[in-house]
């Protein structure tokens, strides 16, 4: 099985407070990997270390290596010779709260990733935008409001718009931080179906609080606790026969 991302000895700090401890994990290509764990265990931080958002805030610090094996880039993304703005184009991120750009139209929200990454061909962009909107099953719902503000859509539509925005420029890795936690059950199930579709083209890492969701959509699951990776295994295995006591406690809900 191919690996797209190898995280090695990753440590992360907010100021002087360390929140990630020696994380080591290999993320398999074209699969969905779920990250679960109690609140505050560092799931979001781990995700934000992968596309180097974490270090953007003054005082934050990261140590360790993350090897990315993409089509155009292979190597340690924390290499001092790597510009983070260059590697982010191979990754897309979907945030917990839907955050389409309110100052851009629905259409431009999807096109912006392409423009930012140097696409100039208007025709090609148009094609890709419609394609992306189709992929997230949004096109039919918004085809009459492509020129309206991105924030004029409903919450679930906004989140699918954000997914379209993240996949339009064809990244290889999708990072999703609790993408459904702000949505109702119907919108949630739509997005879950979508994820299963998307894994044919992209590798997905999804942080979730919802264990059923992890069980439903993911192929692999990582369990984190207090900034450490406790267990990483195929989802079925992890839920049926957890090796670690903490994992078992967590998935059976015996956690305090």
């Amino acid at each position, binding site marked *: 099985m191919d690996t797209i991302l190898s995280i090695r000895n990753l440590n992360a700090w907010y100021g002087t407070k360390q929140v990630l401890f020696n994380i080591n994990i290999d993320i398999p290509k074209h699969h969905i990997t779920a990250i679960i764990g109690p609140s505050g265990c560092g799931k979001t931080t781990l995700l934000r270390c992968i*596309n180097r*958002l974490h270090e*953007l805030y*003054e005082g934050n610090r990261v140590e360790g290596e993350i090897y990315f094996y993409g089509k155009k880039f292979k190597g340690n993304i924390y290499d001092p010779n790597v510009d983070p*703005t*260059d590697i*982010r*184009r191979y*990754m*897309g*991120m979907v*945030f917990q*709260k839907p*955050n389409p*750009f*309110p*100052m*851009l139209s629905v259409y431009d929200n999807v096109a*912006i*990733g392409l423009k*930012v*990454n140097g696409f100039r061909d208007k025709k090609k962009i148009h094609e890709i935008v419609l394609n992306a909107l189709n992929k997230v099953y949004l096109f039919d719902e918004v085809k009459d409001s492509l020129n309206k503000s991105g*924030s004029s859509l409903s919450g679930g539509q906004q989140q699918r718009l*954000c997914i379209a*925005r*993240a996949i339009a*420029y064809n990244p290889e890795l999708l*990072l999703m931080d609790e993408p459904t936690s702000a949505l109702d059950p119907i919108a949630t199930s739509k997005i879950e179906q979508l994820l299963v579709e998307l894994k044919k083209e992209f590798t997905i890492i999804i942080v979730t609080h919802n264990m059923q969701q992890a069980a439903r959509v993911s192929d692999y699951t990582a369990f984190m606790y207090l900034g450490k990776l406790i267990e990483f295994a195929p989802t079925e295995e992890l839920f049926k026969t957890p090796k670690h006591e903490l994992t078992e406690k967590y998935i059976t809900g015996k956690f305090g």
Partner: protein
Amino acid sequence: MKADKFFSYILIFFSLFFILIVFLLGYELYRGSQNIISIFGFNFIINSIWDPVRDIYGIAPIILGSFITSLIALVLAVPLSLFIAYFLNELVPHIFKPYLSSLIELLAAIPSVVYGLWALLVLAPFLRDYVFIPMQKILGFIPFFQGPITGYGLLTAGIVLAVMILPTITSIIRESLALVPSHIKEAAISLGAIQYQVAILLFKYIKFAIVGAIILGFARAFGEAMAVAMVIGGKHEFPISIFDAGYTMPSIIVNEFTEAVSNLHYDALVAIGFILFLIALANIVVARLIIRKTMGYIKYTTV
């Protein structure tokens, strides 16, 4: 409680008194312009002859001068303000930020007569010798860049105004930039946007505030009297180039007030004040509404 009642009446009295002053300001300027309105009517605005000796007053060239100088000021100040605002908010390390910001704010603290004195005795001669004359050599084939150069005129006034409105525009842009929620910036960055692309997106996000800042900057430039009066050259006819002397509405008030020759001359200056009042009112109200709306919109999208 009695004291509370009494105190609230005092506050309300002063508040109403304040509103009364604002209305009185408009009304008294209007009344002061009655003579001019009844004698010249609309011609006051569209006529181009200003001749106190014959008591003929038309201010078309003066209005034009006001617009030209203010526009020059905007053209120079707005782009600079955008860059400076981004520089101070997003590029400068934390430790230097307060110092560098207060340097920009210091520009706003310098009195306009001091700007005027500097522009009159230092800047204008410098610009004439080292900027305008070389500029005319290159651009002299364009109509608005021809004619004699004294250093005192519309372009110099516009440049001084640009410096004076720069801190205003910068601070409004900075305030609204600071209000952009971090998840918007993060979304842009996660797409692979590099600094200037993030900047463009942020500026789009606060575009209404930028428009408000521009209008407010325009209002400031339009109403500035002393500094302009000292470098504008003082000419009542239509200017023929941007190097030419001219007048703006506030500057003609300043320059002619002390030597007005007739009552009607005073009235004409008061009428100019009334027009200034109307334009300022329109600008400020529009700008405030736009800025307030943007702030509301930013808050709305943050929730």
